[in-house]
């Protein structure tokens, strides 16, 4: 398996992992809404995952850039910019005092991310298969 094949295999795994975190966030938010978890615990839990998630995504994006996969990079660039901006403005952490007021936007954001990771998962899978197919003959 060639370089591109390995790269997209790695991307598929990463996307699966990110997908998983997004689903986890969704579940946690619905738990909050049905009072299974209090806002303080929720924010403590979620905030542990925010930076790793952002870092993983940033790493993947940068990897695409240096390996010359420009389409994949351009697909991921908007989300990367969005995440960076959030961190710069210091509002990437979930604030327990405001969580109920900001729950709807948070849910919307996670939902969009979920969709994005799902699509990118299939895109990477396709690219990986494509790379394998191009190698084999």
């Amino acid at each position, binding site marked *: 398996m060639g370089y591109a094949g390995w790269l997209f295999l790695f991307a598929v795994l990463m996307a699966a992992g990110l997908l998983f975190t997004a689903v986890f966030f969704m579940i946690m938010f619905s738990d*909050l*809404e*049905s*009072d299974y978890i*209090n*806002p*303080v615990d929720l924010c403590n839990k979620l905030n542990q995952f925010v930076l790793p998630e952002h870092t993983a995504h940033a790493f993947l994006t940068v990897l695409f850039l240096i390996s010359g996969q420009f389409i994949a990079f351009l697909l991921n660039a908007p989300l990367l910019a969005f995440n960076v901006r959030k961190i710069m403005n210091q509002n990437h*952490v979930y*604030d*327990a*005092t405001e*969580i*109920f*007021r900001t729950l709807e936007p948070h849910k919307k954001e996670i939902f969009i991310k979920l969709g994005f990771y799902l699509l990118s998962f299939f895109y990477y899978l396709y690219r990986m298969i494509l790379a394998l197919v191009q190698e084999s003959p």
Partner: protein
Amino acid sequence: MASPAQQLPPGWTAEWDATHQRYLFIETHTGHTQWEPPAAGPELSPQPSVSPPPSHHAKRRQYAAGQTQAYYGVGDSLAAVPQYSAAAPQPQPTQLFTPGLAADGQFQQQQQQPPPYYGGHAEPEYINAPQQPVYPVQPPSQMGVLADQFGQMTMGHKGLRLFTTNLLTSPPEPLELRQPPPEIFLPPNSCLSQSPYANADASYQRCTLNAIPTTNSLLNKSKIPLGLVLTPYRSLKEGEEEVPVVTDTVIARCRRCRTYINPYVQFIDGGNRWRCCMCSLSNEVPQLFDWDQVRNQPGDRWARAELNHGVVEFVAPTEYMVRPPQPAVYIFLIDVSHSAIQSGMVATATRTILENLDRIPDENGRTKVSIIAFDTSLYFFTLPSGGAESSMLVVSDIDDVFLPKPTDLLVNLQEARPALETLLGRLSDMFQDNHTVGSALGPALQAGFQMMAPIGGKIMVLTASLPSIGVGALKNREDPKVLGTPKESGLLQAASPFYKTFAIECSRAQVSVDMFLFSPGYQDVATLACLPHYTAGQTFFYPAFNASRTEDAIKFAHEFGKVLAMPIMLEAVMRVRASKNLRMSSFHGNFFVRSTDLLAMPAVPQDLSYAIEVQIEDTITAPFVVFQTAVLHTTCYGERRIRVVTTALPTTSNLSEVFASADQVAIATLLANKAVERSITHRLEDSRDALFNKMVEVLTAYKASMTAAGAGASAQLAISENLKMLPVLVLGLLKNVGIRQSAQIPPDLRAYAQALLTSLPSQILIPYVYPNFYSLHNMPPECGTVGEHGIIMPPPLPLTSERLERHGLYVIEDGQTIFLWIGRDAVPQLVMDVFNLPSYEVLRGGKTTLPVLDNPFSQRVTAIIQKTREMRRGVYYPHLYIVKEDGEPPLRLWALSCLIQDRADVLPSYQQFISQLKDKVSVNSMPSFAIFNWMFM
């Protein structure tokens, strides 16, 4: 039946109630009514007014007659209703007065105008006033103009009538803000009790709509925001009815929705079961419900307080306790840095604590106190019980805060009283020569927290500096270049996450924080106010405090003393339940939202307001709905209790009834909360736009559905009579320091104004938004003297400087500040009478205390100032400023900025605002109008 006339104490009248064939006793001062004859006072009034049993009242709603009299004074009920035609100022002025640019000529013209006369009766505070149907009594004179509208249709035999008024021709009438909210017309037989208290008084809980639309689409059509405004824990003035307490710990609650039994449930099955008014579940009546445990005999269920009162307190059994009731704990964190000592804050604060030690709630000797002083180090004081001497322990390691001693720091108030008194007497002197600049507020808070975390209680922070070292240190981020730009709202957000995370820790440990801020410079009120905000405390701000000015010292000592003496609720949680298909969607106020509908409040101070937005989720089929607020708390006397506030409101599918039932005061209170929230999450400009657009939406909706003009063009700007003051209240909000468009307002003042806007109950908030304006030099002779309802106040004037005469003396007050405005041509006699000075020229403007002089006018003026300071609930003691018409511009402009109907800078006058609204409303109506035309062409 013997006439009770001879036995009545002064201030009471008896009123024959035809429905019940007995006398109803009314305390005219408060509007309090009762069936039992009041206990006769020592001196009997010579001529108590007792009306003979009338027969023509038979059809009136119960108590209405008595209430009308209680409100307006006996025998004068109609005369005192605002005389709309007379009250209207002279023909709408075309020339607009600009504060600061007062041309002499304008004043001269205005002198010719006769003062308006509304009827010389002192109006009681509007919130205490009993409900009475005002609007149906006398439709305003403008009605005739709008006779073509179908707004006047009657809503059934018994209900609210909608009266349309034209905003272009009927100017704001200040007296209308003192009217009670639109009456609640519940369907017959919805209430178990005949008591007038079965529905909670508006001062405890009021809804923006007193008839709830049955569907969300109907609500959306009206565009009026649906929400509750509540002050479950309010103070009682002398003579007001105490909240009844159910002491037998028999608490009937719905099994499914946990609603407390209230006057709106139904007894079924021969009284053995009750049907919940919210979810219709049938519940068993507890066995001991009909048992009088005090006398140990069968009791009368119908006499139980929870079936007769909308506001009631239950003594909670042990199931409601996580732990035995805690004692009240007070920890004082006192800043002793250079600036704090120099301003005299420390001396004033310690003296106030010392003087109020007896007033701190401590009924059973359990209350604990501690004092921690701090600058860049922490100073702890051991207060050995019984001993008279305290010793000081210094902790200068502020990175890892620890308590230097496990015991004797937090001590029993009574046992350590001698040591405490000595310490308080000496504290200020001990640090007299302290030149340390800087503040370790964060570490001090942590120390206080460690001390009280096992119990919980109240931390009172008194600080005059920006926290500079240790955790929670803040930077001076005040930047004049940012003011007035979109970035300004950043200054209103918390600068450091510490104050939020620490607040959450506090909330969990049942610790509440009050902030008293005194800084001469920037102190980042926005960040520091986070702590009181999320721990259910309060923020007080005394900018540039200087105790050598007696007025400053008196104000702070008065307010701090009241806070110390306040009986607080501890370890509280609040939950609002409502009938099926109503959902509490968002919460505003000082608390931490612990789950979707549970508000955590480690301590509940009196007279704080909370606002809750309500959503209609599905069609409501019930004829009426119930909102019930329950506050589970520990009293500061060590008893676990539940305060339950129940409000029942009818439902309606009629849009005109929705409009007719709208409560403008509650709407303005809710809008104030929403505007502040928006200014922080978005930009100040967005919050102003949202306010303006909300007003446009309501007017557009009203025009489209309630007037004949519908979508077409109209020469009027129509709104229902009961919403007539809403535009001017919105204008007041737009001009409030917390929201106003300006590049001059220091962020600290803005943040404090925002804290006030989100915590003041309507009674104090409304004057803060729409100040009171009285003319003193030509007030009717009885004003300022003691009348039936206490001091008689002059009639309020509309807030426009057209009313300022050059020789006049005026009061402008917004509940936080009182301005005594004096015109430049004031006659020497007036200056002599009030200020004891020979002429206007020698009078100096600024903060002052009026001398008490031996002449009737001075006494009347001081009485009015005094009454202004006392007539509302809450701890605020407004400063009095003398403002000379040609005095220092900043003070003059500040006073004039209270006259919100004037144009000021970029901010529109009321007339301009109304025409802006009208333009926007006609633009909004246009598209549909165009389509309408197109369809029929």
